[in-house]
């Protein structure tokens, strides 16, 4: 168990339990490194990585970029708004042009589910999926799992609630795969319009009652309402959503014990979570961000370390 089973990280669905454990263990060493006075190691100094962001991102892009710099990789950044994609170039053409300049790894975010998988079948470089539409966001799930483990140890048997817009969330899907593989018990909670049909086949519980769910769980991972992906009305108003599904102080004060609060960001303050909860001592939202750099370092390090067959 010293290398990954795949040369790409497209989704958690295709990683083995050993892969996930190896990434989380390696991330621990990288977290130590990014907390040193000299936060950098020379490991990937001969590797060139292209960050292709066809969709907007702040946290993930900065996190990947920092992780690459801490590993001493050379990086090029690309965002679709300022590129030839606007002139009608296809994804494969864009990527092949970049690869012909000798790039070893592609980190890509794209609005179409399956975009990373499509590329992985056609090109030779390592691919890291940084979010493909509503499909998967594997590094977010890994950093969430890392943050939970850091806070409460082994996740086997732990009760994790994922609350909010499950339907449009790639974070939810990756989290479900990751947490189930690590042996956690998962409940999805949200209005029935935002929970996909048949998702219970993944081995999760479904709830539409936020108070019961909060009472049950050890960790509440609260997701953002993705207004940009919602082209019909899934609930009457944001105010009504906040009333029935928002995580707020009054709800948490009714619980018998303290629970850990997570959110992948960006937060719609006052909608899915109130400021007093997001900024409270039970929230590990900023730890998630810090751990993101360490986990992404581990993923890229292990991909490069993967032997060619």
């Amino acid at each position: 168990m010293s290398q990954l089973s795949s040369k790409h990280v497209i989704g958690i669905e295709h990683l083995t339990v050993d892969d996930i454990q190896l990434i989380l263990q390696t991330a621990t060493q990288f977290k130590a490194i990014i907390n040193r006075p000299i936060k950098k190691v020379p490991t990937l100094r001969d590797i060139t990585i292209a960050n292709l962001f066809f969709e907007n991102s702040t946290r993930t892009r900065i996190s990947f970029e920092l992780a690459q710099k801490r590993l001493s990789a050379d990086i090029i950044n690309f965002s679709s708004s300022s590129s030839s994609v606007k002139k009608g170039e296809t994804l494969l053409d864009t990527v092949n042009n970049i690869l012909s300049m000798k790039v070893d790894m592609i980190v890509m975010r794209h609005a179409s589910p399956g975009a990373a998988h499509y590329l992985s079948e056609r090109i030779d470089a390592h691919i890291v999926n940084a979010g493909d539409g509503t499909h998967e966001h594997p590094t977010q799930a890994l950093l969430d799992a890392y943050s939970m483990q850091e806070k409460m140890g082994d996740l086997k048997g732990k009760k994790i609630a994922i609350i909010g817009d499950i339907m449009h969330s790639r974070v939810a899907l990756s989290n479900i795969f990751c947490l189930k593989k690590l042996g956690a018990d998962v409940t999805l909670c949200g209005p029935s319009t935002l929970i996909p049909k048949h998702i219970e086949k993944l081995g999760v519980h479904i709830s539409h009652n936020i108070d019961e769910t909060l009472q049950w769980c050890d960790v509440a991972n609260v997701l953002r309402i993705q207004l940009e992906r919602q082209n019909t009305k899934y609930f009457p108003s944001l105010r009504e959503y906040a009333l029935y599904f928002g995580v707020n102080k009054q709800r948490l004060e009714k619980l018998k014990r303290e629970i850990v609060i997570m959110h992948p960001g960006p937060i719609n303050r006052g909608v899915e979570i109130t400021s007093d909860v997001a900024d409270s001592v039970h929230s590990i939202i900023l730890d998630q961000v810090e751990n993101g750099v360490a986990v992404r370092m581990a993923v890229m390090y292990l991909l490069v370390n993967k032997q060619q067959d």
Partner: protein
Amino acid sequence: MSDTILLNGNQIQLTIERLSREVIESINFQNTVIIGVQPRGVLLAEKVHQKILELTGNDIPFGKIDTTFHRDDFRRGKSLNAKVTEIDFHIEEKNVLLIDDVLYTGRTIRAAMDALLSFGRPLKIELLVLIDRRFNRELPIQPDFVGDVVDTIEKVDVEVQWAMNDNETNKVVFIKENN
């Protein structure tokens, strides 16, 4: 595969004691730290640290360093699993006694020195090893304290096998690889 024992448990014990006395003779206790190279150098370093404590009562600051992310053979063969680096003290302007079990090509020690420098600028780095395979060096690195010298051809592995429980004994062995 045939193993030949080079040093048995008693001999290792004596060698560690001699090395510790040599270290005691030459170092300044106020300004010295001991750092073991992961994974197996740490086991030797613990024993030397313990022996110096027994002999002099000086509890020298003790740390561990992992070389994985600084190696030059990354992606050139074996895959590498990182171990813990633990240095809870400043090494700036200190004498660092770096300890590893076997000195072979010198590449691990080069990586260890590189890793060490990201913690600060030590005054001096000295190297203590149990076994020096002196004819296989690929870098200009020489030890300051040597337990035993071994001259071998490259096909032979020299391994320090530390006892992990009371039923085992420490030993240094030659392992001839079947090619």
